């Protein structure tokens, strides 16, 4: 089974995004990150896995083994795939209780993403966050 986060370590992702000093740098960092997200198959990109409220299409698949959560996700927009890599790095391998106790919005803001996302797309990110914290 492929690791849903590719080869990236959460600390590296955080460092990469926090080093960005401009919108352009964040854009380029997200493009780079997007390349590490394994793509979903056509069978996985079904309506049931789709998250509503995103301007681009986003699919999210959650599984649980031995009490910890694993995530796979995809989007038709590249930057959103980069954002997904960042978000999933925060929650991958944690228990649902741990995830529910996280303040995902603040953590994303610390990754320079809050200012970056347009309002309609950040609504999409909020929809992703609440989906991640759902049972």
């Amino acid at each position, binding site marked *: 089974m492929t690791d849903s986060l590719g080869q990236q370590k959460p600390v590296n992702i955080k460092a990469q995004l926090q080093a960005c000093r401009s*919108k*352009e740098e*964040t*854009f*380029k960092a997200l493009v780079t990150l997007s390349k590490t997200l394994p793509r979903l198959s056509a069978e996985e990109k079904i309506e049931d896995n789709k998250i509503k409220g995103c301007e*681009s299409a986003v699919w999210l698949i959650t599984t649980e083994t031995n009490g910890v959560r694993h995530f796979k996700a995809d989007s038709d927009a*590249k*930057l*959103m795939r980069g954002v997904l890599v960042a978000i999933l790095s925060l929650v991958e391998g944690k228990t649902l209780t741990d995830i529910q106790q996280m303040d995902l919005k603040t953590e994303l803001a610390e990754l320079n993403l809050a200012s970056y996302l347009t309002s309609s797309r950040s609504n999409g990110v909020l929809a992703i966050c609440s989906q991640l914290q759902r049972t």
Partner: protein
Amino acid sequence: MAFDPSSLRPLFPILSQQAYDHPLTYLDNAATTQKPLSVLDAIQHYYRHDNANVHRGAHCLSDRATNRFEQARNTVAHFINAPEQSHIIWTKGATEAINMVAFGLEHLLEEGDEILITSLEHHANLVPWQQLAFRTGARLRVLPLTSKGDWAPEFSRYFTDRTRIFAATQISNAIGTTTPLKIMLEHAKQQGAFTLVDGAQAVAHYPIDVRTLDCDFYAFSGHKMYGPTGIGVLYGKNHALEVLMPYQTGGEMVRHVSHHATEFNVLPYRLEAGTPNIEGVIGLAAACDFLSAQDRNALLAWEHTLAEHVYSRLHKEGDIEIYSPEKCATLVSLSVPNIHILDLNAYLDSQGVAVRAGSHCAHPLMAQLGVAGTLRASFACYNTMEEANRFCDVLLEAIDLLSDE
């Protein structure tokens, strides 16, 4: 000599700012235009010197405010060559103007009647008719214009003796196509249908003459023609406005009220319930004055030049698909296969280039084009050739950055 927009730039101070350390390149004018100082000053002046409710009290300020308010109606009537200022109804925008007609004509519609629109409509000129059809049992029909907007002889079949209303946009907001209004309006009139033209995308660019157009209704918004938001106009011929049932009632639109009956006021007041948007009206008149003081043909030719330049630079790039006409458009709407328009938009934004990515409130048109949305750069008279080139350069950079190797 070509028109030089640099003389206009100082009138729009908002344009000379930085966006994320880049010079702002504002190319989202089809969504809303920026406002010249004269419009801002007119609104300020009104609040500083003349503010009072209109048509009410007999006092100095109210008289002055009322005069300026009614003078503005005159200015707008001249601006679109309406025969009488009572044919100008203030609304909050094109959307409200169209809704006013859709509700106002409801009492004349019967089951089986037909409402005809075109396939290039903004949702504002589609949903009100669709809902009117649901309420009355009328049938909404759609004239299948191509993205080029050409008239085909077989289209005449869409105009039948059941066509009660024909509503069409003058220019498509999503792709910039000019519709064949003249011939469509002729067919509609032959069938005795009420005709409405959505001029939201035309007024900033084209001199409008409602007498030559000869439509029953003409709708537009102030904010897309250098005026303020929250103000728009419904123009109507006298008989057409007279048959509209007021869709809002209340103060100002009445002559006499008892607990059991109300006598409505005359036009235009009959259709203007409540205290109007006085500052908006005054700002809109200033925007008309701004445009009327320009050489309109020179502005239009310049806007066409900018759009044609962008078209000619980008259509050579194999991987860009352009949906706008090559000539005589004031915007360029495009997409790039395998690259999401939101990704392109994000890079343009990071470079200070403001455009619009999305479906442009025209879902059926996007379906017709076979895309989820497009990226749209739309021009106004103050845009420069440098800005048009900057859009092209940054877009090509974005495509480079976002292409999978």
